[in-house]
């Protein structure tokens, strides 16, 4: 059985509560106040989205209105070189480089907004596991939506494909 996405479930519950309150009170306009909290969350997210400093906010489990997907790629390339390589991959791709912290090997990129989406933030972090192995941790997060409609997964697949292709020199 397919796992139900918690933010999507939450949105569904909110909608059902809205319908219930609307039915019980008979005031649909007043019932809309139920959506004030999630809308506030989403506006805050839109304001903070372009700053890597707020990474922990976007990746926090408490930020229940965002859909996140995390994945890891391992590589034998040293972290400093890997960081430069990932920047090069992003530069040559459809992903847009937003922000980066060289000292921490952290990168923030995003996909462009279109008719279907406001875009997703993709946080990339390079971690040195030992002298021979480094890890690229990729987390794709929706900005304005509790369900990614598989876009997070597609972002990850696209990034992995680009990275693999870039290793053919």
């Amino acid at each position, binding site marked *: 059985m397919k796992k139900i996405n918690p933010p999507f479930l939450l949105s569904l519950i909110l909608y059902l509560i809205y319908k219930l309150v609307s039915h019980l009170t008979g005031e649909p306009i007043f019932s809309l106040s139920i959506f004030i909290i999630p809308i506030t969350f989403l506006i805050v997210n839109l304001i903070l989205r372009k700053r890597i400093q707020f990474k922990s906010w976007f990746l926090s489990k408490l930020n229940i209105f965002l859909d996140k997907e995390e994945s890891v790629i391992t*590589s*034998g*390339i*040293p972290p400093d*070189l890997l960081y*430069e*390589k990932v920047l*090069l991959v992003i530069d040559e791709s459809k992903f847009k480089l937003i922000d980066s912290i060289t000292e921490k090997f952290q990168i923030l990129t995003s996909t462009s907004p279109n008719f279907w989406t406001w875009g997703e933030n993709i946080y990339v972090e390079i971690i040195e596991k030992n002298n021979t192995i480094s890890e690229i941790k990729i987390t794709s997060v929706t900005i304005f939506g509790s369900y990614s409609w598989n876009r997070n997964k597609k972002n990850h697949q696209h990034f992995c494909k680009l990275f*693999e292709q*870039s*290793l*053919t*020199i």
Partner: protein
Amino acid sequence: MAIVVNLDVMLAKRKLQLKELSEMVGISVVNLSILKKSKGKAIRFTTLNSICLALDCQPGDILEYIKDE
């Protein structure tokens, strides 16, 4: 790894820096560094051709097969 890239040896023989080779062949320093460390997945014939041209050497001077033990 069975295939070893001896780019650093050839660079030393030709008294060239990686950056200089990068400018000569039009491949980024990052990609050449990855190649030098034998961490690349594959090498294109065009890349090999331009490196051989720039360093005036044979592909065998750059690539070496070492049997895994």
